[in-house]
């Protein structure tokens, strides 16, 4: 135990917030939802609740801490070079995906692969989706929050807060997740908006940042390697196959409501991301002015900065908002992982005719398994961004090519094409990361491995973050080869029952 940054009144606010979350879980549990209500909320979500659950789920602590860390270290490039280009991917998702996905009443992302390519592709997609949904990042971040603000050992904080999010998810499924997400959304947005403005006033505005900051701090590309920046943005292509994102589209009352919700969420994210970037930059000014410790970890910058600026009571509200940021992401992906285990792995492998009650029980087991796996992994990695990029790269490499062909390609699609595409994507991702780690050296600044090699008299750097440049073309190649040599069933969409 070390010193705590929060007062008893702030702790009381946080405890009240946590009790409210559990209360919502108990409320929905007492209504005894069916399996479809548990995993896709009975497909009846309206635009406002979709906006809240989309915005709070997809922006977890990896965004709050990762983006603010990016801003703290590199300046406005975090917003101008990363956020804005990456949000354009959401615009495509709103236009192209919402209608197509909602029309076919899927339950999960791997089910798309199963329906179009058969069981093997579905299973590979389920494994990738399950691995991506393991909430290691959120649990790690919860631990860090407790360490920084309450002085607790990180694993104790992750355990206590993680169990609370686990409890209401197990109790109420997607309805509980969505209702808690809505309250968490309000907390996240309002506390960050108020906190960053107060921090700005505390340090003397951006004039103070300009006084202390390096020259590249206000340059649009911030002096970062352009290929690294493109790799970061490209990793966000994972939204096109993000299982939590898909689950919300499946849960929408209509495609139009889903599309409207995505557009509103994009506007919200644009404002939120600037404030988070600004929070990191302003916290750096606070460090330079001696208001925050010189050895402050860049991950903790926004947290320490806003706590510095807020009065007692509001710190508790902000802390609840930060916890909400992590919990809203963790609960959603635990639920996705549970569905992957029950609906996408157990059902096709063992029991295609499993009853509603069995599926509910297995989904809840899967949620617990994912949580335990996440807790185990949470303290292995020390760079939020690097871990997130690896997880997103793995999922994207495995499922992006076959999913896009399934949804938008009207020509020949053989089951072998889907399976081979998934398999090649998986092997290529793991192989690439291992090869670069083996051949390269660790870079402390960026928390990754870089392999420097010579070719034709020139020297080149190959980063682990460049994996998608290799894995996606290989996955596409796997699809093409599988399509050439595989058998083309007459109507693959009818092979598997919905």
């Amino acid at each position, binding site marked *: 135990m070390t010193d705590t940054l929060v007062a008893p009144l702030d702790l009381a606010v946080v405890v009240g917030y946590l009790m409210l979350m559990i209360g919502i879980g108990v*409320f*929905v549990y*007492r*209504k*005894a*939802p*069916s399996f479809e*209500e548990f995993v896709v*909320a*009975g497909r*009846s*979500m*309206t*635009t*406002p*609740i979709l*906006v*809240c659950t989309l915005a709070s789920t997809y922006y977890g602590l990896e965004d709050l801490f990762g983006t603010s860390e990016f801003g703290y270290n590199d300046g406005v490039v975090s917003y101008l070079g990363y956020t804005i280009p990456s949000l354009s991917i959401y615009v495509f998702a709103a236009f192209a995906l919402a209608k197509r996905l909602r029309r076919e009443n899927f339950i999960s992302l791997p089910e798309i692969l199963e329906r179009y390519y058969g069981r093997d592709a579905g299973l590979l997609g389920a494994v990738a989706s399950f691995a991506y949904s393991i909430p290691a990042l959120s649990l790690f971040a919860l631990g860090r929050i407790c360490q920084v603000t309450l002085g607790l050992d990180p694993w104790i904080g992750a355990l206590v807060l993680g169990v609370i999010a686990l409890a209401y998810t197990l109790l*109420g499924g997607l*309805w509980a997740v*969505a*209702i808690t997400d*809505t309250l968490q*959304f*309000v907390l996240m*947005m*309002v506390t*960050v*908006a*108020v906190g*960053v*403005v107060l921090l*700005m006033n505390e340090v003397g*505005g*951006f*004039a103070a*940042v*300009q006084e202390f900051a390096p020259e590249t701090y*206000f340059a649009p590309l911030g002096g970062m390697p352009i290929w690294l920046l493109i790799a970061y943005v490209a990793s966000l292509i994972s939204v096109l196959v993000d299982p939590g994102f898909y689950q919300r589209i499946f849960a929408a009352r209509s495609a139009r409501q889903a599309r409207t919700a995505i557009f*509103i969420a994009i*506007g*919200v994210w*644009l*404002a*939120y991301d*600037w*404030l988070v970037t*600004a929070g990191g930059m302003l916290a750096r000014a606070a460090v330079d002015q001696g208001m925050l410790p010189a050895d402050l970890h860049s991950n903790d910058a926004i947290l320490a900065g806003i706590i510095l600026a807020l009065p007692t009571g509001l710190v508790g509200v902000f802390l609840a908002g930060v916890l909400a940021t992590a919990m809203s992401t963790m609960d959603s992906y635990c639920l996705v992982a549970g569905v992957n285990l029950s609906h996408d792995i157990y059902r096709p492998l063992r029991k295609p005719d499993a009853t509603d009650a069995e599926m509910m029980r297995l989904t809840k087991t899967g949620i617990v398994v994912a949580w335990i796996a996440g807790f185990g992994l949470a303290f292995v990695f020390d760079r939020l961004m690097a871990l997130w990029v690896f997880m997103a790269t793995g999922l994207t490499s495995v499922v992006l090519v076959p999913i896009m062909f399934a949804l938008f390609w009207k020509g020949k699609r053989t089951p072998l094409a889907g399976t081979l595409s998934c398999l090649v994507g998986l092997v290529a991702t793991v192989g690439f990361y291992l090869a670069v780690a083996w051949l390269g050296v660790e870079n402390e600044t960026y928390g990754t491995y870089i392999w420097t090699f010579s070719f034709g008299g020139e020297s080149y750097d190959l980063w682990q973050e460049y994996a998608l440049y290799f894995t996606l073309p290989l996955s596409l190649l796997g699809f093409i080869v599988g399509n050439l040599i595989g058998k083309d069933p007459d109507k693959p969409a009818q092979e598997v029952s919905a």
Partner: protein
Amino acid sequence: MNGWDAFTWFNAVVLVAATCLIFIFFLRDAGEVLRQAGRKKDD
């Protein structure tokens, strides 16, 4: 006022206003949402 300060203020105001509006619309739908959450038991 520094241009970046003004941009930060603008985003903070937009974010709070948008959040309030979305929450008001959520409350409008809340009754139906809660009924939907309990549909199975009521049936």
